[in-house]
């Protein structure tokens, strides 16, 4: 026990805030940090935005009808669009991680490729659902 206690554990320092923007990440790294950011965003918005809207939409016929008025607000639309991207990115990146956990696609080239697919597919789906949200179809 004393032997292991004497051995210093490796320390990894976080990069400082001004360094974040100039820090160059590979595609998989971008997917990874966005997975974390989108998860945190969904966590924070869950009882603040998502559940109140859900409550309103299911509680009554009048509440369901009033959703149209709430959704007409461009700020609400924008918040929902961001949350929509958050969910879709977290969903797609999460499936990629589950597949990687099965030791599929671990090689550098295929991991890079699947990271690009995750970014692309989640953004494309956000555009599709976003167009629906903004009433394009």
């Amino acid at each position: 026990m004393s032997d292991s206690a004497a051995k210093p554990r490796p320390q990894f320092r976080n990069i400082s805030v001004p360094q974040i923007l100039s820090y160059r990440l590979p595609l998989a790294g971008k997917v990874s940090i966005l997975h974390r950011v989108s998860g945190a965003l969904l966590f924070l918005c869950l009882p603040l935005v998502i559940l109140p809207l859900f409550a309103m939409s299911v509680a009554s016929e009048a509440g369901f009808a009033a959703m149209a008025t709430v959704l007409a607000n461009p700020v609400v639309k924008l918040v929902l669009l961001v949350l929509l991207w958050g969910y879709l990115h977290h969903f797609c990146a999460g499936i990629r991680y589950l597949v990687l956990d099965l030791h599929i696609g671990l090689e550098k080239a295929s991991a890079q490729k699947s990271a690009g697919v995750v970014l692309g597919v989640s953004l494309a789906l956000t555009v599709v659902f976003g167009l629906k949200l903004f009433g394009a179809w």
Partner: protein
Amino acid sequence: MASTQNIGSKRLVVGAHYGWKDFLAQRMTAVILVVYTVVLLAGLLAMPAFTYENWKALFSFTVIGLPLGQILATLAFMSLAWHAWIGVRDIWMDYVKPAGIRLLLQVLTILWLVGSVVYFAQILWRL
């Protein structure tokens, strides 16, 4: 594997399984959430018209008197809370080093999530 474990005076003695249970729970709750997302999406696509009654039924449908819609939604939401707890706790462990602040944030996270579960249950089981 066993041959690389340096059992003896040089062995680092720590507890076991600290991360494994959480790792597995995070993956399993993720799979449950993927399945529930697909179920909801299928329900939305199968909907004849997007009306209040149909939307409500997505979360409150019954099968032979059993409130299956509510049970599935409750199970999915509890998976969500568990999943979020592991993820957010990992964020605090990665970025917040002082033990006191980290503990405070972890307690607030639990309150935030348990509050969300109660809020969701209250909305859902009134239907």
